[in-house]
């Protein structure tokens, strides 16, 4: 079984590390960490992820801007993106079906189990 490739983009190195450890502990994922929004596109082109976890608020480049760059890439534009946000509350992500502007949102702090369930959901149909 080939491992699913996940690119985790967040300026918090601690968080990307925890995401990697939790996802890799399942044995089903291969995770690459990226702590700079500005490098996210480059990393994605290089890594060719099946799914991108993207922090909304990063000091060097907003998550939405990164997402816009990805949309313009002929290959990456179809890659699913799951946003991680500290500002949107859990109730809001739940009541809007976790979709804002066509993207899936997860509110921090997110439990590993929820994150994995969300990723599986996004990749399920592919």
């Amino acid at each position, binding site marked *: 079984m080939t491992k699913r490739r996940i690119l985790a983009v967040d300026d918090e190195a601690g968080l990307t590390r925890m995401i990697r450890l939790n996802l890799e502990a399942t044995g089903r994922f291969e995770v690459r960490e990226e702590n700079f929004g500005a490098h996210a596109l480059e990393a994605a082109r290089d890594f060719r992820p099946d799914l991108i976890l993207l922090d909304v608020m990063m000091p060097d480049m907003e998550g939405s801007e990164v997402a816009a760059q990805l949309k313009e890439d002929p290959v990456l534009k179809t890659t699913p993106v799951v946003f991680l946000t500290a500002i949107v509350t859990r*109730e809001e992500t739940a*009541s809007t079906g976790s979709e804002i502007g066509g993207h899936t949102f997860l509110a921090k702090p*997110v439990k590993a189990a929820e994150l994995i369930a969300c990723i599986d959901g996004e990749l399920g149909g592919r």
Partner: protein
Amino acid sequence: MGEPAVAATVTDDTQARQTVLLVDDNATNLQVLYQTLRDLGPRVLIARSGESALSIARETVPDLVLLDIMMPGMDGYEVCRSLKGEPATRDAAVIFLSALGDTGDKVRGFGLGAVDFISKPFQGEEVLARVRTHLKIRRLERDLSARNRRLEAQQRHILESMGEGLFGVDGGGTIIYANPAALRITGRELEDLEGADLFDADWLETSGDESGRCLMRDAILGESARPCEHEGVVRRPGGAGIEVDFSAAPFHLDGAVRGAVMTFRDVSRRKRAEIELKTAHDALLKSHMELRHAQDRLVQAAKLESVGRLAAGVAHEVKNPLAIIQMGIDYLKVAQRSPGDPGSQVLADMEDAVARADRVIRGLLNLSREQVARTAPADLNEVIDKSLGMVRHELTQHNISLDTDLQPGPATTLLDVPKIEQVLINLFMNAVHAIGRDGLLHVSTRTVDLTEEVVYEAGIGNVFGAGDRALVLEITDTGTGIPEAELERVFDPFFTTKPVGKGTGLGLSVTRTIIEMHRGAIELRNRSRQTGVRVTIYLQTHESDKT
């Protein structure tokens, strides 16, 4: 001297000049009298017989008649009786001329209305003195009666010009006088009123019933009668009522009450003005309250705004570390497989701590955000049942009994069910914390038509008006209550009466925000007779929400 020309002597100055009529069949007597009186001043007329005297008197209306008693044909007594019998000549003063010294004749003469006697033969001085005196008396009488007439006319004029209605009643309460204003206000004719009993009048309604009328009659006409004032309504023939103020004063004669004067004034215009004034005053009061409320809300909103800015910043800074801790715990849990390991408990406690910190941040964000309720028709009673189910364990644990009094049938209205559940659980948990142990939680719902009093007292005038229908949810506890001084602040963010670490101070702020999203209102006060708090939530009813 011959037959004197009688009527020819009539001059134009009859008003100013007095007239004396001399009546005697004896020409010599007439001449003596005439000469005696000629220079006195008054016009002097003479008649030789009773019949002639009467015709002259009718024409000239003399002030004084010197009248011989013994005359052929009509004698002096008869002439006197005739003069006194006719209105035109009745006021003439009659002095009999008599040779008779008989007291009986004099008595008879006085009985017929004579004022004096002059004895024959005439003493010039005596005649002059008596005539002068009686002319003077006569003039004074005339002046007096003229003055009386003038006075009466003036008084009548005053009474008739009064704007107030005026009734005079006799000692029995019968109307003996009504002025034109009284007729105008009552809409009745004089003959409808005069002779009627004022206190039995069916057109007069006074404060109080029949006994009130008796009291009034007694107060005005009874032994201890004194002036008094009343309010009442005058019923006009068409049925229209005119509000009146009336005042009555008894009048006494010889120490007894002989009647009363009652004046009344049409005050309907003043009353209307009073009502308009009151309406305007109420409207002013209401807008003042609304203004004050709006001001409170503005202050609150300003607080919330600053909280909101703070919250967004804090959320970002705190949630990232929380996310790391959470996922760290998750990672460690996978490694800690054996259930008996104390490490499992450590991780569970840490996870709880993360959840708690997250709740605080979430509360802050909820509070700071302009949120919209996503409402759909739902049964409030059901939501209450469900929420109570969630705190049942807490109630049992703290030995709190539950008493519900929910409106029969569904209490359906537009609700954002998850948010209302949040509100209810928050309020129930507040009650549990306030009671501590052993107590009663009472929950009721009912549909109420709001009165102005309730709207004012509850301070919900910015959302509801008098006459609006509201679905009212009441939650009371038997806890410690809230110090009066702190009541005003309970809806402030971060205000809490709970011990440190027990509450975020956000519950009631969020609660109110949610209720207001539903276009409802919340009121919190200490119970009046027992300790504890009563929270009242006013929600729109489903039908009022449609409009």
